């Protein structure tokens, strides 16, 4: 299987997010999967709803985009839908973000 620059994240309700590997690797959990079966299939099934996962992916990209400027502090705020905040916090802990 050729090395792909992307991996697919699958939510519990079967939403699929194709994410740049570098971006996913921000989460050490997602990064660690690569040595295992998930690395072979290029697919990571996660126990979380699509909307949560979407928000997480958005955050990962946000983080990826601004990782250079993080120290200078001149970056726009990341908006979190209030109703997802708690759930998101738990999943972030799970993913070690």
């Amino acid at each position: 299987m050729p090395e792909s620059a992307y991996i697919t994240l699958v939510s519990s309700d079967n939403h699929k997010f194709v994410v740049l590997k570098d971006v996913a690797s921000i989460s050490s959990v997602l990064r660690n999967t690569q040595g295992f079966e998930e690395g072979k299939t290029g697919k990571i099934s996660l126990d979380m709803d699509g909307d949560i996962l979407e928000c997480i992916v958005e955050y990962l990209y946000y983080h990826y985009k601004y990782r250079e400027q993080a120290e200078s502090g001149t970056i726009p705020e990341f908006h979190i839908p209030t109703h997802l905040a708690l759930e998101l916090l738990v999943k972030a802990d799970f993913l070690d973000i």
Partner: protein
Amino acid sequence: MIPSGSRRSKIRPPRKSLVSSSLDGSNSDPTVDFEKSWSILSSAITQIQSKNVSNLSYEQLYRKAYVLVLRKYGAKLYDNVASLITHHLLVRRDHLLAISDHEDFMKAVILEWDEHLQSMKFVSDVLMYLNRVYVKEHKKLLIYDLGIELFKDNVIKHNHDEVGRKIVDIVIQEITRNRKGEVITTTMYITKLINMLELLVESAGTDIQYGENYFQTMFEPTFLQNSETFFYNLSQEFVNYNLGSRYIREAGQFIKEEESRINFYLPSSTYPKLIDLMNNIIIKDKIDDIISLPYEQQGLSYWLQPVLGNIFDDRQSTHHLAELRILYELIGRFDSEYQLLRLRLKENIIAQGIQLPEFVKTSLQNAGEKKTATNSTAFATKWIDTVLRYREQIMKLSAEAFASNPIVEQTITYAMRDFINGSGTNRKNNISVNAPELLSVYMDYYIKQLGKPSPSKDISTSSSDSTDVFVNRSIQFLRYIKDKDAFEANYANHFAKRFLNSKGASQTINANNKLGVDLEELILSKLGEEMGTTSLDKIIKMNKDIKSSKDTTAEYKKHISKNQKQNLVDLELKICNVTDWPKSMTKDYKSFSKSDTGEVSFLWPKQLRNTIREFEEFWFSGKKNDNKSLYWSPKFGSIDMRITYPSRTYEINMSTYAGIIMLLFAPQSSNADGTMVSAFDEQKELTYDEIQELTGIPEADLKRHLQSIAVAPRSRLLIKKPMTKEVNNTDVFKLNENFKSPSIKVKVLTVSASSSAAPSKAKQKTEQEEEAEEVQSNIAEGRKLEVNAAIVRIMKSRHTVRHNKLIEELIKQLANRFQPSIILIKQRIEDLIEKEYLKRDDDDKNTYHYVA
């Protein structure tokens, strides 16, 4: 939420209620079954250990561990993992111990270690949440570190370090084989094993406390001990060759190899320990014995021998540079001051240096030179050249072998200074040399050489070059001389002689030489730079006299031509201030004048008297000469005379005395027509006694000069009867009608010590000795004054000084002039006490007070 470096700490999951409640919501099975989860996890770990990682779903395993940790099964999970790994490792250990071949064993250990680390990496990934939450909170070892710890305890250290010892033994065995020069194939394994041992950190108890690693506690002590024995035996083996060069070469080679070896294998903390060990055992403990080996066994004296050998003939016997370079490097390894090297080098240089006079003597004798007195010109020039060449050689050697290290070169300089100034020379049968005098003789010789008009046309370049070379060499040598005052006295003496004995003409040649600078003045200024002008005061004043003499001569000539004086002899004046010129020359200046004793001892010939009177008139008419008295000293100077022999007319230059003798034979009567009767028609004959009576020349001088003009074959202006070498009181002299010379200009060389005939030799010798003695006494007098002055200077500033302190101070102050002896100092102190400059303390005899 702003992502930043500390992002992780910002997102904290609600610890208890929230998480569990949310989990309750999402997870259908609230009571997590630990055993069930563990069995999945443990089988996964086993899978990982069997390298079946790619069939496991990380997300699921991670979630299992995650849930277990959230459910407070962290401790249990941790312990289970530990025991599972322990079990696995114990099995692997048995497997390892079954291997007997060293190389295979090393390979297997490394493989086991690598695989263990690899699997621990995956296990640690799976148990990441355990690491993050449980381990952190309870300050346990991280899973990965736990793996290393377990590996250490269960593989390496288990059963009294069974595997550990085996590894250490094998590695040391391999290194030893390599040291013995065997090629080993296990170098990579050794490196890896040592790296592994370094990672096995000892942790005391359960607390994570980074102490020493296994390498330091187990491997290093054994290794160092082993190395020590090895080095010791090896160096002993080298010593047993009984050959310094071989020791140096092999030790140097081994150390170089060992260095790259351990650099490759050992961690940087062990490196210096081993190097120290090696330096101490192989170099420091042995090197002095090696250096001091006798010549036959090729110690330092052997390595330095070519330095001496190369001085005289340039057959370029090869220097032992390689050995010396290694030696320098070896000693530099443990002593950046090179003290041992410097000490031994100094001893050897001095030992070689005191052989130099003997060498010079032998080589002079071989060259057919019969007279080899240690103060002869030939000896002086040769010796100084030799010493300077020796210096050149050894400096070249220093540059090539000792990296021109300044402290080493300083030692060389000190050593040279020691042998030049003759410390330790008197012990053995070596010829002692008087360096200050020899240098002065040397300079005298070269100044005369350079002062001679050179026949070749292109002297403009070559002579200025050779002048520079000469001056530089002289100054260089001067720096080695401790008794600078002795040099000054000798130099002053030679300087005075050069001036007084030189013909006026050569003086002008000097002045007009191509550089436009008087050679004497050039040297004087160089010496001034070197020693300070105050100490050269006398010589400088003498030089002034020389200049004013020239001026006076010029003025006098002007005066003569203006006043149309007739019948006067041309004068080239040398007017000296008695006080500034060496006593040995001036002591008897008054004996030639009538005014002092009333006794007329010396008679100026009438041909000269007019001129003398004329000049005296001129001299005393000058205002500046009011308070001065003028004495004529026929001992010095020369006369140019035109004598018509039957064969032809010659222009003859001779010493003043000789000229005066010749004037006795000048025609006295005139023919009827008023022309002078030829001297040869007069057939004048004079006995020795008559000559003495008519001239008043002191006996010794008279005999010497009569020899010069009546005995010496080249310049036999007179005929002596009987024709013997010796001059006796009854001898009769007359003009030599048959005198012939190839050129019109003839120079009569005054018989001197170096070319004198046998009978006069003894006399010349004593005269020379006398002069030397006088120079010596001059020096001694000068020293007394200098010591006195220095004591007074010190006492003036300190008022009260203890004896030892005073001596110390004195030696320091006088160091660049000469080295005062303690006896001299004591005498001077007594002298000053007598003169009431100082007084002894009433209570303490060792303390002096300054009396204002």
